[in-house]
């Protein structure tokens, strides 16, 4: 069952679109905001609520990289791996993060604190290299700066 507050937020979105399916991406992002990710159970509830098949909804879910179909850590780190950041030191940043956190890209630390993901160009190329943590943008990075930033996310 969808929680009432989730249902309410989705219903508010429905007012802006002529079909129920149109809000399915918003709906999954709303669920994710409350629960961290979109589980099979949430997917089933949402599909029913939106009048879609579970398969169709999962087809949409798996297309969009900001929709998580697996559990993530308390904080999600997204490191830009596109061209300007690559020129300005992405590799060094990636090596530092993977060794400091002890995980590879796409993995979550054993204590559930961080999930590390690559992301395409964050549109802040004049301050490369860059990453986002939980939606906060961090720019002009080097390993020392990264260490200080990570401490803020417990």
């Amino acid at each position, binding site marked *: 069952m969808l929680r009432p507050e989730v249902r309410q937020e989705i219903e508010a979105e429905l007012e802006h679109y002529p079909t129920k399916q149109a809000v399915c991406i918003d709906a999954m992002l709303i669920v994710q905001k409350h629960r961290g990710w979109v589980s099979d159970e949430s997917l089933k509830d949402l599909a029913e609520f939106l009048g879609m098949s579970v398969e169709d909804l999962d087809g949409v879910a798996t297309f*969009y990289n900001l929709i998580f179909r697996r559990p993530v850590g308390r904080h999600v780190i997204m490191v830009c791996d596109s061209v300007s950041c690559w020129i300005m030191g992405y590799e060094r940043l990636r090596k530092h993060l993977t060794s400091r956190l002890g995980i590879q890209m796409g993995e979550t630390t054993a204590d559930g604190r961080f999930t590390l993901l690559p992301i395409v160009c964050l549109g802040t190329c004049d301050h490369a290299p860059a990453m986002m943590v939980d939606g906060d943008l961090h720019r002009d990075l080097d390993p020392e700066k990264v260490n200080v930033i990570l401490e803020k996310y417990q």
Partner: protein
Amino acid sequence: MEKPLTQRIRSDGEVVDIGAYESTGGYQALRKALKLVPKEIIEIVKQSNLRGRGGAGFPTGAKWSFVPLGPEAPRPKYIVCNADEMEPGTFKDRVLLEGDPHEVIEGLMIGACAIEADVAYIFLRGEYKLAGQRLARAVEEAYQRGYLGKNILGSGRNLEMVLHMSGGRYMCGEETGLLNALEGKRANPRAKPPFPQVSGLWGKPTIVQNVETLANLSHIINNGPEWFKKLSLTPDGGTKLYGASGKVKRPGVWELPLGTPAREILEQHAGGMRDGVKFRGMLPGGASTDFLVEEHLDVKMDFNEVQKAGSRLGTGTMIILDDQTCPVGMICNLEQFFAQESCGWCTPCWSGLAWAAKMLEAIEEGRGELGQLDKLAYITRFVAPGNTYCALAPGAAEPLQSGLKYFREDFERHIREKRCPWSH
């Protein structure tokens, strides 16, 4: 030098709120547009020679003229602001969205007047959180002042405006992929025709415009097409947000006359190359544009001149390659991006780009063979325009085909020495 697009943007990074926007002439253009008939607005924009700033450079007024008008036209009609800035190396729309959201919103309203749109969607990439907060607030302010909703400023006209945060993926920035995403589907491209101007969102007439394109509209309506044309150094009207990233002294974004030479942007505005590195080449307008090299630096950065030099203006944000950076590694990074972001709809794209990325990885890691250079060149032809539904794969071919031309010796050296000469 006039800088209409960025004139209000604050140096402290704070947003221009509705009070500041209105007190500097904001929403006067909307008032004018509400008194004009759609064809008059379209004619003004046509005369201004405004071309789309999203990358393709299609003339904006001409695009609008395909939308059916009048009482017989299908309703509702839609206008969409494409704020899905995801072209690697591009960071210009962010400046407008975060700095002066009302300028973009007013442009969207004027576009809506021109095509008699009933609903406007702002399609914003999910990672632009600050822009999202500021746009949401600006839309709310516009409703409160009666610029949106029913019977706008007593004109009898209606417009609803909705902010949609995207779930990610480069394909959403492609016009028809974006329409599918807004309908709650996978962002695969659609066949054209029918063009969105006739059959777009839910089969209704729809216009999709880039953020920077929309930001120009209030200034064109306020000051007229002749003024707009004079802003530019070339026949296409207006200023342009140019940018530079890579190892330059002062990477950034600057509003300059359209047609400003690349050398001026690089040397005067970006401050030239950092100490100890030399310029080797650049992608003039994002990841999906052909490399230009030293001999092209005097090219005027406008649509026609960059094309004559063998590339495209694209988004106008240059990515600079220096001599301490491996060109093969850079091209490998670009093709990995395009292969990953292929939506899987067209075989030349999903198959060809993945193959290209694999070969480039092999060459970069010292496992390459000379014959692979011909295969890479073959792939650039295999994904040429016309073989796929959208421009993702043809765009991916651009840095690869020009890279093979200008950096051939670097590719061969990787293969000969079985290593990347830049890795230590």
